């Protein structure tokens, strides 16, 4: 499984990429493999505020619907509209074109709670 070194990770299999005051969020390669064929993505509403661990998006495979959580407290400033017509981008390019939303974070210290690549690799075995 691909676990890029330059990203942060959550217990619930989201990845984060720091972009100044923002973080870009998606689900990991491991998660997309577990989810199987993604057929529908419910994106969060623009400008909504979310607390850490709050379910703000849904990724649906043929078999089941899975919640996607805000990894840290923040405000939704961008969503990946491309997933509406092509949800399978989550399977084909989970760390790239398959990103789901961008959060503007209030407190960069919140990121300290997250796992680095080594810790996430250990989690997924």
């Amino acid at each position: 499984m691909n676990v890029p070194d330059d990203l942060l990770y959550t217990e619930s299999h989201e990845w984060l990429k720091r972009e100044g005051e923002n973080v870009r969020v998606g689900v990991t390669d491991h998660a997309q493999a577990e989810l199987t064929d993604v057929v529908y993505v419910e994106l969060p509403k623009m400008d909504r505020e979310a607390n850490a661990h709050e379910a703000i998006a849904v990724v649906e495979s043929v078999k089941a619907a899975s919640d996607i959580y805000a990894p840290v407290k923040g405000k939704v400033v961008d969503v990946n509209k491309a997933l509406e017509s092509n949800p399978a981008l989550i399977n084909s390019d989970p760390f790239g074109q398959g990103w789901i939303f961008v959060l503007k974070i209030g407190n960069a210290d919140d990121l300290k709670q997250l796992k680095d690549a080594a810790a996430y690799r250990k989690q997924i075995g």
Partner: protein
Amino acid sequence: VSEAAQKTTPLYQEHVRRGARIIPFGGWLMPVQYTSIVEEHQTVRNNVGIFDISHMGQFIVEGTDASAWLNTMLTNNIDKLDVDTGQYTFLLNENGGIIDDLIVYRVGDQKFLLVVNAARVEEDFAWLDRDLRLCKEGRSPLARRSLAKEADRPGGLETAAPCDIDLKNRSANFGGVAIQGPRIGELFHALFGQDIELPARNTIVDLDFSGTNLSVARTGYTGEDGIEVFFPAEIATEFWNSAIGKGQEFGIKPCGLGARDTLRLEMCYPLNGSDLSPEHNPIEAGLGFFVDLTKPNFTGRDVLQRAKENGPAQKLVAFRMEGKGPPPRPHYSVFSNGERIGEVTSGTLSPSLNYGIGMAYLSAPHTKIGTKIEIEIRGQKFPATIEKKPLYKKS
């Protein structure tokens, strides 16, 4: 149920070896997919796929009175079965509720193979066995009446003891696979010989596979042409690998329960435990075709007769989602003009049609084909339309 308590089929190691994702299903550890549900689904629609169905139960009912007794326990009419043919039928409780749906094959003059759902094996067997004990004690009212009637006929049961019936659960010693898809004919001949004919639809024949007798039935649960093969557990791995090996040139893939579910739902074949349950009878499920009300006695008959005369209160309908929306799922509520009219029992994104499809029990006045309904998904209502079954038709 913990994983340790789950049963495995004779093909379990093959699934693991081939990298299948394994899930618990009906008390069994089964492959849900090998590579992708959508890919496996398309393989069955376009080429040919092979499924492990060893988790399904296999009972043998044999004896002079076997057909007379089964006709009191099952809804369809056993007397219509010639030797080597099978029929879809129901096992009902006294209220007409569905315990199980199954296929019964007449494999000898008075010998039957019942193929039942994995999760219902113990329950079905206990239900049949209980009635059989009553029958043997002369206390099963239904069996007594039916058998007495047969005994009155010339050449009937005069010489046989009443309830000469043996019921065996051979599930643990037998495996099975379904091989389904338009290229089944080619693969069948590659497996069994160019001069061996495919059995006709709904028939079952014994064929030789490297010295072992296999039962091969022209049946399936996918809407594609195909066969189901039943064999002793010892040769499961050999047969499975042989079919996959010989199937390479026809584009075969091993397929999991995920594709099995999307394929059957496109055809509106019901799934026991989802679309069928003891709370619903076959008339409500729209499967009255498999109930023979001209039979004088079978468990649940009176309830079904009334349901047919008065019309069922609820009906199982097929529907499709309109426009872009999330796929429907079991237990989502269904609305019409703000009124809750029922609940989804099965739902998915159809890989063949590329829109959401499902089945739902709705109150009968709302079940006309073409009716606009709404499916509530995470608090929001999405438009859907009631469609004719099956949802998928081969072009």
